[in-house]
């Protein structure tokens, strides 16, 4: 790696930050296969929910009947949309946050250390939640829980949660490593 132009840690950090920034922009411009797969799921579930809801309206209001279980099916598809959508949001660093330290502190080691710590904490918390959701999923497998209307195993729906949360954990981890590399002033 390039040595920092002076021994100044701040300019080394700036350099590292610009490099990470460039990497992120490149990733956004050329998303990988995993992201494209997620987008396919997001678009497919979005189209499916819209279509099912439209079918529901047409049958209910034009023909006076509803297809049994269609609402339940929609809500299951929507759950997939939410969790994969949220994973994609973590990839795009678009999760809602309200950092005040970022605003209060000037760019520097203190601010960057806080950022790195926040990312690390986020990753750990998200990983923990992934474990919980996996337990919840396994519970629905063991108890053979079936949906009330359509009668499909709840496991098919519940697995969207550990998958979405695991992906989020993965993207948070990458972000943590990136922020840490900025903190150290290297890439």
């Amino acid at each position, binding site marked *: 790696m390039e040595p920092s132009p002076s021994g100044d840690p701040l300019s080394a950090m700036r350099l590292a930050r610009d490099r990470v920034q460039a990497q992120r922009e490149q990733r956004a411009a050329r998303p990988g296969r995993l992201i494209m797969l997620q987008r396919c799921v997001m678009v497919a579930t979005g189209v499916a929910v819209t279509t099912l809801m*439209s079918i529901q309206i047409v049958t209910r209001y034009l023909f006076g009947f509803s297809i049994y279980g269609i609402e339940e099916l929609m809500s299951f598809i929507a759950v997939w949309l939410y969790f994969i959508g949220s994973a994609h949001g973590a990839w795009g660093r678009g999760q809602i946050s309200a950092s005040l330290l970022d605003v209060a502190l000037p760019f520097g080691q203190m601010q960057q250390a*806080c950022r790195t710590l926040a990312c690390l904490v986020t990753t750990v918390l998200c990983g923990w*939640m992934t474990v919980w959701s996996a337990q919840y999923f396994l519970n629905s497998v063991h108890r053979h829980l079936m949906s009330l209307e359509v009668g499909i195993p709840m496991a098919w729906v519940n697995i969207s949660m550990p998958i979405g949360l695991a992906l989020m954990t993965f993207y948070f981890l990458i972000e943590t490593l990136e922020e840490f590399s900025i903190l150290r002033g290297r890439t």
Partner: protein
Amino acid sequence: MSSLIIIDTLVLIALLVMGVPVPLSFAGAVLVLVCFGDLGNAAFLIGAGYGKVSSVIVIALPLYILAGNLMSQGGIANRLIDFADSIFGRMRGGLGIVVVITTAVFGAISGMATSAVAAIGTIMIPRMVERGYDRAYATTLVAASSVLALLIPPSASMILYGWVTGTSIAASFLAPIIPGLLLILLFIFWNRVFASRMRIEQTQAPAGMTPFQNVRAKGRRASWALLMPMVILGCIYGGVTTPTEAAAIAVVYAIPVSLFIYRDLKPKGLWQVFWYSAETTGVLMILVFFAAMFSRLLTMENVPQQILEVFLMVSDNPIVLLLLVNLFLIMIGMLMEDVSGILLAAPMLLPVIKEIGMDPVQFAAIIATNLGMGLITPPTAPILYFAALVGKAPLAPMLRYMLVFVFLAYLPVVLLTTYIPELSLFLPRLLLGR
């Protein structure tokens, strides 16, 4: 209040301030309670989150977001602005009025304040600066009026309020409309005051057209966009569909309008609008997911009841209690944006609201105006900051204008909404006979 809850609140605030995303800050607060509480295996809490996100009712959320994005990508902002400009543009401070009116109408199509800033701010801020408005002022005006998106239906915040409190979404949609109209009037008033101090050029009607012909021509161009709120509201309040089904109708309406009539959206762009909308939805729903877990735990620890008791210790006068409710909401609004605020505060304050004997539909309007105001009040002021980014305006001079909008527009409306039930209940009574 137990010390564990107080520690937990501090942990939550610390995580938020540090910059941990709001949903995971809630997860952190959950973990603290679980580790030091008596719950045994806490994986069941996932069920609390799942129960909230898997409802058919909240499918309204992705659908309205999708419909709103389809229309914004389809170029409605331009058409709405031109139309409003043909009517108000030649008045004193006309462009400011155009911003207020356009964001309000845009709000009737989109449920998110951020989309209003992005769609209208990008066009209007440069145009206002060009005509002589102060950049900081133009930007603040866009931010303050973009909040109308969550007061005028459809609104993501009101869908979630209705869902977490078990209140009808159709009624929650109607409650904040009149407070929203009051805000519009106040914005227009303050715009006139500020504009009179700036050197501003007036718009001229295009050559060869009378002003009236101009309005008609621009109105026709905007008509498909203007028709969409009518379709949505007609479906819901004409007894045709539930609010969720009306959302699907909005999507089905928006696709051909933006693809074939306005033609600003290309079929290729459709793909992007779909995944982008799904991402926005996912980011909101993960918040709902973790907020539901946290709020379930707070219920198990009896916190809403304790909040009520603390409030009652201060006073049992409803006027004072309502003031406390608003102070509580203002504090929440300083820490987080509207959706997180609603998810956290609504279940916590519901016992107080019931004690006072207030209709939860009126509380919908209070919470919407108060937490809407929170979107532009620092330290956490996402809409103000986003507008500053879009308008390329420095924050410091914006704060002066922001204070006027908050103290002389939002705050009076919040108080009026709190103490005059008719403002929020008139429309639900009229249209739903509640």
